[in-house]
């Protein structure tokens, strides 16, 4: 699990850097949340949970909101991804994108509720809903691209000689 965790964390960090240096302040997208959702659709729960903690900590460290807000939001996404994986058996990209949209919407509800409970902002404030709604729709539309990126990481790791535990070693003729 360590190698994929490091690889996905580095991908997350790279996305965070791109958001900070290129997209901000003109484009707001929840790319880290999308990454976590698509990693959550992969078999390993422990990898997803660990990545959720890493990405949640990263976002919380740069924000002025209470530490733990993004951490909790990451775990909501992990839960949604696992639910989609086990109950809906998602195979097609379109359905995955729709499930991603639902997960991001649920994460938004969680964030709104917690920030409201902490007295940080009014519940479902009118001006926020529109901006956040656009942000969520734009992010979900990038689902297929994120799917490709998430597929690419284990392939790249395999190229470096890494194999998941569940996968048998490649056949080598005896005596070689």
């Amino acid at each position, binding site marked *: 699990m360590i190698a994929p965790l490091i690889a996905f964390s580095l991908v997350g*960090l790279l996305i*965070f*850097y791109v*958001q*900070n*240096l290129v*997209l*901000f*302040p003109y484009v*707001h997208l*929840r790319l880290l949340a999308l990454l976590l959702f698509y990693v959550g659709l992969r078999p390993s*729960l422990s990898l997803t949970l660990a990545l959720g903690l890493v990405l949640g*900590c*990263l*976002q*919380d*460290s*740069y*924000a*002025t*909101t*209470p*530490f*733990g*807000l*993004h*951490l*909790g939001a990451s*775990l909501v996404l992990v*839960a949604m991804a696992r639910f989609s994986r086990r109950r809906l058996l998602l195979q097609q990209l379109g359905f995955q994108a729709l499930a991603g949209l639902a997960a991001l919407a649920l994460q938004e509800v969680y*964030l709104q509720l*917690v*920030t409201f409970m*902490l007295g*940080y*902002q009014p519940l479902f404030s009118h*001006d*926020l809903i529109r*901006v*956040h709604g656009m*942000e969520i729709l734009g992010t979900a539309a990038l689902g297929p691209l994120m799917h490709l990126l998430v597929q690419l990481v284990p392939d790249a790791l395999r190229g470096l000689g890494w194999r998941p535990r569940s996968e048998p070693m490649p056949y080598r003729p005896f005596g070689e």
Partner: protein
Amino acid sequence: MHPQGRYRTPLLLVLTLLLVFTVLSLSLKRSPALRKVQGLVVAMTAPGLEGLSYVGRSAKQLWLGYFYLVGVRRQNAELQRQLEEFKQRGVHFQEAEQALTRLEALLDLKRQVALPVIGARVIAYDPTLWSRSAIINQGKAQGVKEGLPVLAPQGIVGRIVEVYPEYSKVMLIVDRKSSADAMIQRTRVRGMLKGKGGNRGSLEFVPKSADVQVGDLVLASGLVGLYPKGLVFGKVTAANKKNPGVFQEIEVTPSVDLSTLEEVLVVKVATLTLTEP
């Protein structure tokens, strides 16, 4: 199903909820352990951002300063800087004139604006929409402390909320947790400037009888001692007296573009020196 497997999901759920609520409650109590975690994450990730930002800036400077328009850009930047300086001076002169008309003869007009400051570079922002903060490349090692105001040539940027060994976190004046005592320059009406997220704030607790117009400058009142008196927060961009209640709805847009900050000043002492004759 194996009994261990049956309880796995509820157990995970309970543990996760416990973790989240523990971390949140520790955060609300400003736990030093969580601050250390935050500091560690920033210390590990910010150098990468700083490096990439430096490379990007250098490439951009090479392009704009040499290939694009040799010399003209430098001259333009110098003129822009001078213009901003004169604008800021203009605000100070207006302030001094108003003080004279109110017969504040005792006030020494040789205002000592030379505050002890630390120059810093903004290296990262919080890219989410949930808070407005920035990370600067000066920390405890350089003498930065919590609560110190942060300024840009055009006005107030925010204040330091977290200090790490080599970096600090600045809460921008438009963050929803930010609030400061402010006043309208023209009429001296006071209110509380609160952040509204995005790139705007609102001046609250201003009675409907008070004279506030669109375009009025909003300055730091200096009363709470957080920001130096007379420095610019921004301009009134909307004032509504038709809302219910006893106070006006006043929207303030910061004079500083808080999304494209590069260099800022951290003021070591949050009060202007006013000498009496």
